[in-house]
């Protein structure tokens, strides 16, 4: 049998997500991190696109959960140095370098760093500013333990010379004699998440980087923006500390550059990274601000990205389609002059206060060595090679990879892959689930019955997210005077591990019996703080949050006084609310260990198979009479792998798997229940009980119409990409006879009605053009495009197409191509901006790269499961960045085109991720159920039965005496019965009229 432990290498967001998913589904995780703390690149970011979420704020709860997780063994300063064995039973050797500070003893007081005389460049801040040789890499570091830097520590290099830290450390944690340790770990599987490094632009002398202090990389700029960075979030340029008023971003530095850099690939994330920085920098600037982005193609191909791009344009960010020739000093003041050639071929000059280089992603050198040690194949760009149809599998069985080590990618994609890798590892180790784990035991809960309220209030600066607008000290002082409050304080980041630990001790020391945190939104952070209460021996329902960020500082940025007054009210309201709250029971519901998957395309089949292989029964529902969905209409992927053989094989595996039953020609007619136990009724009248559901209903091609019709449906020579794929699959001999072909990109995408990029069409169109060239190398092919978005390694295909002589002509919405028929021939008119002239082409094949849109039934399906859809009709995930396959509704997951257009490899990864997230529920016998339920005061009840009428869950009934009773296990806590009761006999626990009206009254005190 397999071992029930797993090794995860790399503690960035991908490694952390994989570790959490695996640990939460019944496996013991050894998480190996190379540096002193987990968090990776994401911890260095200020904000994240496209939501402008504070990176530390959304990451921190995950890091804290990871650091405190009972079944995650965190090994920092550690490397995997050897691995032998096979899937199910590997033996890994992990070498841990000395920290020289005993983490068991270190209380992170910071005295060692304060007294340490050795200053070194601050690597966390990308070399801007200094830290000490005794250091903590960043304020929210997990584990929150200091370390000595062996390269710079005076004592370690010359024993006997310094030792100040040891003298001042009250805890006696310093240990200069610590040596490296080796651990031999037996694991069933290995997940690699070693991340990426950023290209070093020093060799590119035209950028001035290294010579001109005001030329910085995008990561350096990120630190300059960050509230925990070297200038505390007040943007200053390095040369003189002045606030820059004009900033330029240069794209593709170290990406899409074969000439000087040898990186043919696109780094995928830099366009959005630069857009975000331009938007955020403007937010930081006081008064006038000018931002310009110099780019080749704006690649905003992800969910919500195109909208972000459009908004940036509206906000005045300027865009120049140009590669900058040189950056030189403009004068002695530190300003910079850029020389570039614009689209019309004219040489231009522009002056800026600062230049940001959007440096590309690349593989760490040590990752290459690690891959060699493990015997993994690398691709031509040194990324870890993966399989087209199993995007997280490496070339060695049992070893999986996720995140940017296999191709440049953004955070949500990395998180999806992390969950997908967890699913794959879980598949191998399924029989050993819960064999190596131990269970967390909370301290006994304090009985607060009959105690007077002792409320503690914690007010968060959130870096500068709150404190730059709201006077948080004044809010904390105000809180101290509120009835029942015995303690209040401010914290830089309330969600960081040190503050969380401190909160536990404060609750105990101060004897707090209720807690209010004034910070961000309960939607993201309530679980973390509630867990903290439990760790301190308090019932987790004795807690309220005051949302003074999302609903205050962020929406009243120009009215600090009023925002402060509002924050005081919000805190008073939360205090009033918590004052009369009581402890509630932790109810649970038993989990029905089976899954429903809706949609029989590649995504749905993959999700079904992944859960079935973890030994859970699955019903797969397909509305048509065959499996395969859209995948059957597509010829091949950009790597040249054809889809049909894969889909046929997948279909065979699904239809023959003993744990999967497929229902064809079936739709959903009703869904009741919730996580743990849903009951779904199908169109054939049968119903099925399941614990979780995965929605994978796919998408559909836009049918060209109006100005985007281009004679499609009228002239047989005008076809969509899918229609052309059909001809490829049928090996249509007529294609060889085509002399001239034209492709029109973005047909129905990136327009006001559909303001998103369909992500796959550039690659698909170019691959189809290349295929046509393969069939007939003499064919003339023109691509009419807006931006070429062959992101990641798909860029190679674009290079190949140009090398083959395919001609690319850019168009914009003001100059749409025009298609007509004259004398039996097709005529395409377009404007070529490079020669600034109109061109006419007579193609005998015109191909339209049409948009992908959600299916019409997505909306009704989302209602069955109470899930949200976005403004375009795609399903809306719980969090765009960190919960890309979850819904806000528990127990329901999404994957594939119904989420957003994506290529098959990404849909497969997302399907596996959904399966992994679902397995976290299926792994348990019971899951938490609603604790906030309705309760009846029988003496007040008149037996009118209105509560019975309004309850959508049939949880309320009248007993034999005609008095209302609530069946707690069926109650969802909506409060319809409470509002409906004429005699005030029904209440909702902790959300009664008493609590709500106390909160309202507090706003007017």
């Amino acid at each position: 049998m397999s071992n029930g432990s797993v090794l995860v290498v790399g503690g960035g967001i991908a490694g952390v997500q994989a570790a959490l998913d695996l640990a939460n589904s019944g496996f013991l995780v050894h998480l190996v991190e190379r540096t002193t703390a987990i968090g990776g690149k994401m911890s260095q970011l200020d904000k994240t696109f496209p939501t402008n979420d504070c990176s530390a704020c959304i990451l921190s709860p995950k890091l804290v959960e990871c650091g405190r997780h009972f079944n995650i063994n965190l090994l920092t300063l550690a490397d995997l140095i050897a691995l032998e064995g096979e899937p199910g039973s590997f033996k890994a050797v992990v070498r841990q370098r000395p920290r020289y500070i005993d983490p068991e003893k270190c209380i992170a007081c910071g005295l060692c760093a304060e007294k340490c005389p050795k200053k070194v460049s601050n690597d966390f801040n990308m070399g801007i500013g200094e830290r000490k040789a005794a250091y903590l890499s960043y304020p929210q570091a997990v584990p929150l333990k200091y370390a000595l830097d062996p390269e710079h520590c005076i004592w370690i290099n010359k024993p006997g010379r310094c030792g100040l830290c040891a003298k001042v450390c009250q805890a006696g944690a310093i240990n200069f004699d610590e040596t490296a340790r080796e651990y031999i770990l037996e694991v069933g599987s290995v997940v690699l998440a070693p991340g990426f490094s950023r290209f070093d632009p020093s060799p590119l002398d035209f950028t001035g980087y290294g010579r001109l202090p005001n030329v910085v990389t995008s990561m350096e700029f990120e630190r300059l923006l960050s509230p925990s960075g070297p200038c505390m979030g007040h943007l200053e340029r390095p040369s003189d500390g002045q606030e820059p008023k004009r900033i330029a971003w240069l794209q593709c530095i170290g990406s899409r550059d074969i000439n000087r850099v040898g990186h043919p690939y696109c780094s995928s994330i830099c366009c959005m990274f630069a857009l975000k920085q331009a938007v955020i920098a403007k937010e930081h600037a006081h008064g006038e601000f000018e931002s310009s982005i110099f780019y080749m193609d704006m690649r905003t191909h992800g969910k919500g990205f195109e909208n972000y791009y459009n908004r940036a344009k509206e906000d005045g960010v300027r865009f120049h389609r140009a590669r900058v020739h040189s950056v030189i000093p403009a004068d002695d003041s530190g300003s910079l002059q850029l020389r570039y050639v614009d689209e019309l071929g004219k040489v231009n000059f522009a002056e800026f206060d600062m230049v940001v280089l959007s440096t590309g992603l690349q593989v760490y050198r040590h990752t290459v060595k690690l891959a060699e040690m493990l015997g993994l194949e690398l691709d031509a760009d040194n990324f870890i090679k993966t399989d087209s149809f199993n995007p997280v599998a490496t070339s060695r069985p049992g070893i999986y990879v996720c995140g940017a080590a296999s191709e440049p990618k953004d955070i949500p994609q990395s998180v999806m892959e992390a969950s997908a890798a967890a699913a794959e590892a879980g598949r191998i180790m399924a029989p050993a689930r819960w064999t190596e784990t131990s269970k967390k035991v909370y301290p006994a809960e304090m009985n607060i019955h009959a105690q007077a309220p002792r409320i503690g209030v914690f007010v968060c600066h959130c870096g500068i997210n709150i404190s730059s607008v709201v006077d948080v000290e004044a809010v904390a002082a105000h809180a101290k005077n509120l009835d029942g409050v015995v303690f209040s304080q401010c914290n830089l980041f309330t969600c960081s591990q040190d503050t969380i630990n401190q909160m536990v001790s404060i609750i105990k020391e101060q004897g707090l019996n209720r807690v209010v945190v004034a910070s961000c939104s309960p939607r993201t952070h309530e679980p973390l703080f509630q867990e903290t209460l439990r760790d301190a021996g308090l019932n987790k329902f004795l807690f309220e949050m005051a949302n003074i960020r999302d609903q205050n500082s962020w929406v009243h940025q120009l009215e600090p006084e009023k925002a402060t007054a509002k924050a005081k009210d919000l805190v008073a309201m939360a205090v009033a609310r918590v004052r009369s709250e009581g402890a509630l029971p932790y109810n649970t519901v038993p989990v029905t260990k089976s899954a429903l998957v809706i949609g029989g395309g590649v995504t749905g089949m993959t999700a079904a198979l992944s859960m079935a292989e973890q030994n859970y029964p699955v019903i797969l529902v397909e509305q048509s009479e065959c499996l395969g969905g859209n995948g059957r209409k597509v010829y091949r992927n950009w790597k040249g792998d054809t889809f049909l053989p894969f889909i046929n094989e997948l279909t065979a595996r699904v239809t023959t798997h003993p744990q999967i039953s497929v229902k064809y020609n079936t739709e959903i007619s009703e869904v009741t229940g919730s996580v743990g136990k849903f009951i779904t009724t199908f169109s054939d009248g049968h119903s099925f009980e399941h614990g979780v559901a995965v929605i994978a209903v796919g998408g559909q091609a836009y049918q060209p119409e109006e100005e985007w019709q281009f004679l499609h449906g009228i002239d047989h020579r005008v076809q969509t990409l899918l229609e052309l794929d059909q001809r490829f699959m049928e090996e249509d001999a007529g294609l060889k006879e085509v002399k001239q072909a034209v492709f029109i990109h973005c047909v129905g995408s990136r327009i006001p009605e559909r303001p998103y990029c369909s992500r796959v069409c550039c690659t698909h169109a170019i691959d189809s053009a290349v295929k046509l060239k393969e069939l007939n190398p003499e064919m003339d092919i023109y691509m009419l495009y807006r931006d070429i978005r062959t992101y990641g390694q798909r860029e190679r295909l674009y290079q190949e197409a140009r090398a083959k002589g395919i001609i690319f002509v850019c168009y914009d919405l003001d100059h749409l191509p025009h298609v007509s028929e004259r004398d039996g021939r097709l005529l395409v008119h377009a404007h070529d901006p490079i020669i600034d002239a109109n061109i006419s082409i007579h193609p005998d094949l015109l191909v339209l790269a049409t948009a992908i849109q959600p299916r019409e039934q997505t909306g009704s399906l989302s209602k069955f499961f109470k899930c949200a859809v976005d403004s375009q009709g795609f399903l809306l995930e719980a969090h765009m960045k960190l919960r890309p396959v979850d819904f806000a509704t528990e127990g329901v997951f999404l994957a594939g085109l119904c989420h957003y257009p994506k290529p098959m490899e990404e849909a497969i990864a997302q399907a596996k991720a959904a399966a992994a997230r679902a397995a976290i529920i299926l792994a348990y016998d019971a899951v938490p159920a609603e604790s906030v339920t309705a309760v009846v005061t029988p003496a007040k009840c008149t037996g009118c039965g209105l509560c019975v009428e309004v309850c959508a869950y049939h949880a309320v009934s009248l007993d034999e005496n005609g008095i209302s009773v609530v069946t707690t296990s069926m109650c969802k806590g909506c409060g319809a019965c409470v509002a409906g009761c004429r005699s005030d006999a029904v209440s909702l626990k902790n959300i009664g009229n008493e609590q709500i009206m106390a909160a309202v009254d507090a706003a007017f005190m």
Partner: protein
Amino acid sequence: MSETNNWEPKIIAFLCNWCSYAGADLAGVSRFQYPPNIRIVKVPCSGRVSENMIMSALKSGADGILVSGCHPGDCHYISGNYFAKRRFALLSNLLDFIGIEPGRVSFSWVSASEGEQFAEVVHSVTERVKALGPASRLVKQLDAVQAA
């Protein structure tokens, strides 16, 4: 008179947890600015909001009330927002009868993906209440009582 010039209304907003509260968060995340007169009270569902809560809030001194829930058909609790809508329609008659101006109490649908919409709703509710001036119908005016 300077007091009236500086007068800023306070508006209580009862937002359902699943749609409108999330929409309000999204307004924040997207930095859509709106007037700071609003005080949000999170409730599980707009169907949790009773007539009593609205009247009590007016009595406590609220100059305006907003109740916002999921769009029709989108209710996390299946039908709560329909009850809220019906209750609100009936309550409007009562408010009218006792002399509370139309526009003091508003109802809206805002989904989790409508941050901009939420900001717009707050703008229009605030403007409406500002135009009406301070609510005094249900608030005990101690000064007046004492003067008499």
